[in-house]
């Protein structure tokens, strides 16, 4: 269960990343942000974002063109 959710549907690069970064800042270490997006580019970008920032991509999925990501904040 996520501690916060971010609706990034309809937003294009780099807005999902920028908004996710902002939302993660409001979370504490170990809390989870759930993101929903429609930008197919976000799939690779969230993987890269998590690798570079050390935040943990717990999972991701796609259903009917809606992508979802669960990211755990790692401080």
């Amino acid at each position, binding site marked *: 269960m996520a501690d916060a959710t971010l609706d990034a549907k309809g937003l*294009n690069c*780099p807005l999902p*990343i*920028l908004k996710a*970064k*902002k939302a993660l800042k409001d979370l504490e270490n170990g809390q989870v942000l759930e993101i929903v997006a429609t930008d197919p580019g976000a799939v690779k970008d969230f993987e890269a*974002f998590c690798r*570079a*920032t050390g935040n*943990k991509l717990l999972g991701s999925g796609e259903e009917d063109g809606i992508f979802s990501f669960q990211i755990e904040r790692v401080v």
Partner: protein
Amino acid sequence: MADAGMDLGNAKKMTIICTKGSLDWAYPPFILGTTAAAMDVEVTMFFTFYGLTLLEKDLKLQVTSLGNPAMSMPMMGGHMAMPNMVGMIPGVTSGATMMMKNLIKKKGVASIEELREAAVLSDVRMIACQMTLDLFEKDKADMIDGIEIGGAATWMESALESDINLYM
């Protein structure tokens, strides 16, 4: 910790020299600058020549088909080429700008104002070129708050300690 990514920490730095002030060319530096900042990179952007206009409070950015043979706009399921020549006709530049801005909105692409605000909020260091201010008789009062004024040596100092230096 293996899970903690590439451990970029705060050590990584990037500079971008922004030299162009058209609507289309305003995107690459602000997209990469804000994204890098979101990935914990310390970013310095140096605005010189036409790029200086990107710091003005009131942005009036335009896009032109002149000298831009690759420009083709999606239209009614196809693409409309923008012949170089028509760019000379009065009104075509503002028409192309309006078309581009509509597309930007429709496709959920950020406005330059939005990206610039994100850059300010994520502590991107923005330096306006003193020489350009003098050359084009621009006033710092017309620029957004929070910027610095500097010259080539100011950028150079940042560039020397940066991992990535881009010129756009």
